[in-house]
């Protein structure tokens, strides 16, 4: 107990960001319990109400409770952010480590593909892909993933190359470990700290990108509440009813901010050499 207290006092930013994210995660998981209203329920008797004790964040032009919609929006944002990160991490791991470990032609081929994906402005590519796919949770995740895997691949490749000549890998090889085992049990654990940092920051980036796609109408389709779409829908009411735009935007900013701070703190903790 006392140890925990000391830890919190020494790492206030780490704990604060972790707490914010934990609360957000809990809100997303238990959205039906937390949200006082149905996020889709239209109530024409309570249109454009300012924030009050009933409607914490006010209501929108259709009388839908914005607080409930923000809470439900956390579900989509976090789900897409986390799953897109996980998926692009796996693709990046496979491509990057395989290329870096094998070297030669395979490495050259993989590097070329990676560089190619890095050569597109990411949002533009995500837009092009999400135009092709029918809009929905899956297609947004896929679009973000196709755009995001390359940076992970580059990271894994660079680390694999720097690690594979080290003596512990040689020792493992001398003991007769298979290539697969060397990659999975010897190289991967060494990559994890740096990858964790990159992944944490990437989640924030993906959430930002998802909100941009929703803002452009390419993300999850209405009436399903997403933060980006809420801002887009009510942007013209900013002068008269600022809360409709303010709260969803704050939700995005706070979430991404927490992920960025958490990433920074992890970097300080895990990788002192690579401080940014």
């Amino acid at each position, binding site marked *: 107990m006392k140890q925990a207290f000391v830890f919190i006092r020494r790492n206030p930013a780490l704990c604060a960001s972790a707490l914010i994210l934990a609360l957000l995660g809990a809100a997303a998981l238990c959205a039906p319990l937390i949200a006082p209203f149905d996020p889709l329920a239209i109530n024409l008797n309570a249109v454009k109400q300012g924030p009050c004790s009933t409607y914490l964040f006010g209501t929108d032009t259709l009388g839908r409770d914005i607080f409930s919609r923000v809470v439900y929006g956390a579900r989509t944002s976090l789900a897409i952010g986390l799953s897109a990160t996980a998926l692009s991490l796996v693709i990046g791991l496979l491509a990057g480590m395989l290329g870096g470990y094998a070297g030669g032609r395979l490495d050259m081929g993989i590097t070329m593909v990676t560089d190619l994906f890095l050569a597109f402005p*990411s*949002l*533009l590519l995500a837009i092009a892909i999400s135009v092709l796919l029918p809009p929905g949770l899956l297609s947004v995740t896929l679009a973000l993933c196709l755009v995001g895997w390359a940076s992970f691949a580059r990271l894994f490749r660079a680390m694999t190359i720097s690690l594979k000549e080290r003596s512990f890998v040689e020792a493992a090889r001398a003991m007769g470990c298979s290539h697969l085992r060397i990659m999975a049990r010897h190289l991967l654990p060494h990559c994890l700290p740096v990858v964790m940092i990159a992944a944490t920051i990437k989640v924030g980036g993906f959430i930002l990108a998802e909100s941009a796609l929703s803002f452009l*109408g390419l993300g999850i389709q209405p009436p399903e509440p997403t933060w980006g779409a809420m801002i887009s829908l009510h942007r013209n009411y900013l002068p008269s009813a600022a809360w409709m735009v303010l709260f969803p935007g704050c939700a995005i900013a706070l979430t991404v901010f927490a992920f960025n*701070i958490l990433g920074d703190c992890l970097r300080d903790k895990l990788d002192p050499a690579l401080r*940014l």
Partner: protein
Amino acid sequence: MNFYLKRIIMTVPTLVGISIVTFVLLQALPGDPVQGLAGDRADQAVLERIRRDMGTDRPVVMQYAGYLKLIMQGELGRSLYTNSSVRADIARKLPNTLLLAAAAMLFSTLFGILLGIFMAVFRGTFWDRMALILSTGGISLPVFWLGLLLVYLFSFRLQLLPPAGMGSGFSGLVFLVLPAATLGLNSAAALARITRTGMLDVLSQPYITTARAKGVSAPVVIFKHAFKNTLIPVVTLIGLDFGSYLNGSILTETIFGWDGIGRYAVEGIFQRDYPVIMGCVLTGALLFVLVNLAVDLLYGLIDPRIARAPAEPLS
């Protein structure tokens, strides 16, 4: 081989790759382009004829060759809605986007570097911590939301700046302020962070102590001795960030009604105007590659050691 020449040749595979990706995207577009062109009631013979004219009955490789030839000539097709040439549209709108990007770049470079140096000089103090939080906040803000808030504050509340639109000539500069600030803020924050790190590294080196010991004034040490050596990461980021300007311009131009290719792309998306979308993707990618090339070539000028070093891909 010459460093510069080699770097230029290295972009060729990337350019080919980009054309392949856009070609695949075009192939994957929903709906039969021939059917779309001929209308729903065209009979089989008409469809066949158009297909032959467009070359869609040939093998995919031949089709790709044809596509490559077209885009090499700068032919990007015609908008499905306005029937105007996509190339002409882009040629007309691109300067606007570049102007906006340049203004945003100026904004972010100026503020980002100054803030970064400020943080490094006052490292560990209250102000450093505040600025660090501020810059982390800066990279966390959604561009489109920030733009809307700035419009609300400066146009509706304070009535200082126009909310949207474009002016011409010198008086048009007021229209540039809000979009440029919106577009540049994310980059300014990122730049501030990387400048701070770079400066902290350099400031702890012995030659800085030497300079200080022999009585060089503080501003000269900071700007001439220290900052010059943090230029490499800073220039890298400014260059790499060009992609984020292109991304951001899609959103910024939409909000501010800026007549650039970002808004053009978004209009294309809403109307499912595929030639427009693909033209914008192609142009954006091409621009991005060229800027990255320019940044890499710049390295050679900033740090001659890189140009002299044996060929090692810069990353």
